[in-house]
């Protein structure tokens, strides 16, 4: 699956200050039974977003009318737990293109990148700055510029790190399979040399 290019995103954001939001919370296991990648947005944060009868819980940020946007701002250690890529699919399907947090679980980070969802890791302090800004003005615009690796909140600029290779992949919409298919001869040679 070629990934959607990511260059620059300007959007308001949805805050989710909870820490350790694991993949079971992002997408509960009972919704893993699909055989395609689409349609998971409906179940995103299902048990945090709706009560058991399916009524929206008014306090949950995704249900609050003042919050909208293509950026999710989440507390520390977002996406821990299961390797289910369905969690990333659900976020993308719902409409998110970037998640800002002070810490991402490793597998989630890879899954996000493989789906054109940009995980932006910022310091704990800056994360709080963003939460406060959204608190003051839920419509505040956040700019994420991947090329320049910066997050802009009004005048405030934060530079974030990203693996240069992954950055190129996202900017250009390249995917790993295409890259590796180009290396088939090298892979075969490796196999011969290692007698596998």
């Amino acid at each position, binding site marked *: 699956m070629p990934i959607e290019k990511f260059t620059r995103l300007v959007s308001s954001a949805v805050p989710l200050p909870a820490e350790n939001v694991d993949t*079971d919370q992002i997408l509960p296991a009972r919704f893993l039974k699909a055989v395609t990648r689409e349609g998971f947005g409906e179940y995103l944060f299902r048990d945090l977003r709706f009560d058991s009868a399916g009524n929206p819980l008014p306090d949950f940020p995704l249900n609050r009318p003042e919050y909208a946007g293509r950026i999710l701002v989440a507390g520390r250690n977002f996406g821990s737990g299961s390797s289910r890529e369905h969690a*990333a699919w659900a976020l993308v399907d719902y409409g998110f293109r970037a998640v800002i947090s002070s810490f991402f679980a490793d597998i989630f980070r890879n899954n996000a990148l493989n789906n054109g969802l940009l995980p932006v890791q910022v310091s704990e302090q800056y994360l709080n700055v963003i939460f406060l800004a959204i608190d003051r003005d839920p419509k505040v615009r956040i700019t994420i510029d991947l090329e320049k690796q910066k997050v802009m909140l009004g005048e405030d600029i934060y530079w974030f790190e990203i693996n240069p290779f992954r950055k190129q992949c996202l900017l250009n919409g390249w995917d790993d399979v295409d890259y590796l298919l180009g290396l088939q001869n090298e892979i075969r040679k490796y196999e011969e040399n290692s007698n596998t």
Partner: protein
Amino acid sequence: MKEPKTLFDKIWDSHVVRRIEQGPDVLYIDLHLVHEVTSPQAFAGLAERGLKVFRPCKTVATADHNVPTVNQEQPMTDPLSRKQVDQLTRNTREHGIRFFGPGHPFQGVVHVMGPELGLTQPGMTVVCGDSHTSTHGAFGTVAFGIGTTEVETVLATQCLLQNRPEKMRINLEGKPGIGVTAKDIALYLLSVLSASGATQHFIEYAGETVLTLTMEERMTLCNMSIEMGARGGLIAPDEVTFEYLKGREFSPSEEDWNDRLTGWKKLFTDPGAKFNREYRFDISALDPMITYGTNPGMGIKLTGRIPTPDTVPGNHLNGFKHALQYMGFEPGQPVLGRKIDYVFVGSCTNGRISDLRAFASLVKGRKKAPGVTAWIVPGSQQVEKQARKEGIDRILKEAGFELRQPGCSACLAMNDDKVPPGKYCLSTSNRNFRGRQGPGSRTLLASPLTAAASAVTGVITDPRELM
């Protein structure tokens, strides 16, 4: 003189097909395990590209996450689950991949099945679309969980683009006391290092304690590495490993054995090799452990009390409060003596034969407490068969328990084994996340011994009292 290397680096380096400057390594994968839930989209992606599986002989599939644990021989009643298993059946047939589907004598939880068949061998790189792939590290492999896009990548090219993780060594010393199992060690490490304490690291477990652990105990320990946020965990192979592997279905043949053994014996961390982080723990004074919260790092001594807010670091306070609220617990309460509703023994953490033996040893001659629903789920067909051979099924039956059929079951509650909202489940699995065992379920993680003691008393019980 050669630079001393860690075990992890030895294995990683020997699998690098190409180094990308300022980028990830192209890593060759020796064994790719596949299951029904995280693979359909990967096979579909392959078809869209018009590709075949590059190395079907290095790919092995089973059905575990979805399967029912009763009447497994009958067609699956849940249409969505059945569709996933059907698709895997078709996909594996089309691509010439070995498939141990429902009813096959080798079917089982993917991380129980691989090792017990000898598929997992020292020095390998092993991946699976499941985070607990870390289990296989017990054999001295670099084994880690991947997402579905990566499953597709491995199917298409037998390689992955991976950044080399940092390395952590956890040295364990001392002999665990009676009633203290590998699961308790894992929960203890988690309680100290936290659920994100090893993010971006690969853990090597070393030290005298590790040498004395059986392979099944080592698997339990490595299994839980992911709960600390680690990419994986591994243990240097030794005589215990080699002995375990001898004569298994896919182990090297007798002719090849000595050759392979020579290679395996080089798999250790050189003295003086550097780790990014290193810890040392004495576990001789350890007590059985249990979790009280909603991530596996929230663990305490079974005999201890739930922490009070003043002992919780400020930035975790909110999460702590929410967790207690969800669990229906108060700060400072003891957990011993609390009523439980469900007991689950199984999963890739504690669903192996030694776990069933441990459970049976304590319930033997006793009776299941009324009001407790127990699911005793073997990790694989082979484990089930062995349990029946040893008469464990009879011991269980006499005590009022039933041995079910193999699968992931209540570990993630994708089949019918769901804990109802608000109910307490003492579980030998690996995750106590909100809703993991069913919406609103409340999970307490512990060892099979603690599960057994609690199942016969109906309240959380220290297994040492019954030993």
